[in-house]
């Protein structure tokens, strides 16, 4: 089954509120099997406009990724993020098909 992903781009404006948000969402992230693939690491904006933090979170499935976002626990924390940061969040389905270089 293809995995699911959250990709978030964030400019934090209020660090205290962001800390509250990040701790508030730990519960639902754990519940839905989230794994951070990228979070506070180095980045280079090679094209277009970027934000200072780029987070990629993997879920066991696309359905889990959506369910986590729609959960009461996560929904209760959204206003914290919206107050703490300018951000975009997209939820997407992974790709399980063949890749370049796969054996014929």
């Amino acid at each position: 089954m293809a995995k699911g992903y959250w990709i978030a781009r964030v400019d934090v404006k209020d660090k205290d509120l962001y800390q509250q948000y990040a701790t508030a969402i730990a519960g639902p992230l754990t519940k839905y099997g989230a794994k951070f693939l990228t979070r506070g690491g180095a980045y280079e904006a090679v094209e277009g406009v970027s934000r200072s933090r780029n987070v990629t979170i993997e879920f066991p499935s696309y359905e889990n990724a959506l369910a986590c976002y729609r959960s009461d626990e996560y929904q209760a924390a959204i206003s914290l993020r919206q107050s703490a940061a300018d951000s975009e969040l997209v939820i997407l389905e992974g790709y399980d098909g063949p890749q370049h270089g796969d054996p014929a």
Partner: protein
Amino acid sequence: MSKPTIRTAIADDLPFILKIERRAAAAFADIGYPDIATGAEMPVALFEAGLQEGLLWVASDAADRPVAYVLAAIIDGIFYLEDISVDPDHQRKGLGDALVAQIIDHARFLYCSALVLSTLEAAPWSNALYRKHGFLKADMDRLPSAIADRFAAETELGLPAEGRIVMVKRL
């Protein structure tokens, strides 16, 4: 030596964590603090809060059973190391080192201004480990009030006031 597996704790880890806490506490008797070795356990509510807030991590063995943990809290924007323990059968494998590195990374991720802990100055494991990661002994008269309050609360829980220091790593 392979890199230890560090992961955020889940509820099923709690019984292991509580057992590690007791087993590791026994070492305090060897450095003159028998009361810590046999004294009150860490309140379970602290671990439950850490679970809920994503501030409790474990190092696990090949069967994914916890053999060490670190518990943190955020106090007034300061990342506070509440407790770190390594099971005596798994010490000297770099697990404490890996757990401290994990919380430094997480404190940076959360934009915390500093990382703070209290420890017994006589504990040989703490000075070497924490200094390696850039912690310095704090002036007890100049602690932020929230940290001074936490230090006092820990003293009330049974940790000694004498010989216990606060260490700080600025981020």
